[in-house]
């Protein structure tokens, strides 16, 4: 660190004290470096310690101490406004549960319809084969309807399989990721 850097940093750290006090302190240390001479510049910097240490002698809290009080204030506000945000949090949680339940319901519905249509279609096909004996026209129509039903049912079952294999794990993953991200951001913030 050079003298210039030291003084600049000190000036920055003293930004919250009155202008006249700050100017006086900077003038003093500027003078101090002058008197010590260039040859002693590093020695003086070492002796003074750091700009933070010098700022502290002037009753200026270090940034970490400030941040600590900031966090205390944030936590205090969070606790005091609990009645306000508890509703929002509960609402968000409820929304999430509803979304999952909705996805679950739709999935089950697709499976049910698919299975029903497939079974119905197959039964129609089988019945149609027997009906052919009695009335070929009726039997053919029944078989045709059965084939259509079975095809629609199989399509729905395929859609169900695709949902279960591809979509739902994706959804879960994104929800888990979102929750984890929020938590990580909070943890990161706490560490500062």
């Amino acid at each position, binding site marked *: 660190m050079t003298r210039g850097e030291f003084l600049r940093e000190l000036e920055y750290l003293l930004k919250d004290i009155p202008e006249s*006090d700050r100017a*006086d*302190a900077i*003038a*003093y*240390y500027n*003078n*101090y470096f*002058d*008197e*010590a001479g260039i040859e002693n510049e590093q020695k*003086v910097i070492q*002796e*003074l*310690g750091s700009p933070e*240490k*010098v700022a502290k*002698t*002037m*009753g200026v809290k270090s940034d970490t101490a400030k941040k600590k009080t900031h966090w205390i204030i944030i936590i205090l506000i969070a606790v005091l406004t609990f009645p306000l945000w508890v509703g929002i949090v509960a609402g968000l949680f409820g929304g999430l549960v509803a979304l999952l339940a909705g996805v679950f319901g739709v999935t089950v519905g697709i499976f049910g319809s698919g299975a029903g249509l497939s079974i119905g279609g197959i039964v129609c096909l089988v019945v149609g084969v027997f009906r052919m004996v009695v009335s070929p026209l009726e039997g053919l129509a029944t078989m045709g309807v059965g084939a259509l039903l079975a095809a629609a049912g199989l399509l729905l079952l395929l859609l169900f399989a695709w949902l279960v294999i591809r979509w739902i794990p994706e959804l879960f993953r994104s929800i888990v990721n979102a929750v984890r991200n929020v938590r990580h951001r909070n943890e990161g913030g706490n560490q500062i």
Partner: protein
Amino acid sequence: MTFNTGAALLDAIVLAVVSKEEQGTYGYKITQDVRQVLDISESTLYPVLRRLQKDECLEVYDMEYAGRNRRYYKLTEKGAAQLKLYEIEWKRYSSKISELFK
């Protein structure tokens, strides 16, 4: 240093050091002089000087020296009176302690 130097004693020492120079003296020299007697960090003295200045025990003036401004500290009347008080107090205090050690 075994013994702590309280704020009052530090004030007294700084006033004494400044009073040695009729024309006043400057921050760097005050620090070096005080460090002859006390093991203090270089950053300790500025707040003391600033406080004594605000309490009107010291006055400040700038004078040109070697092509730049040098800030001098000089004892005021109030500072001189305060130093006198400190001297009396110190004599009383130190003689009592010395007596105890005899």
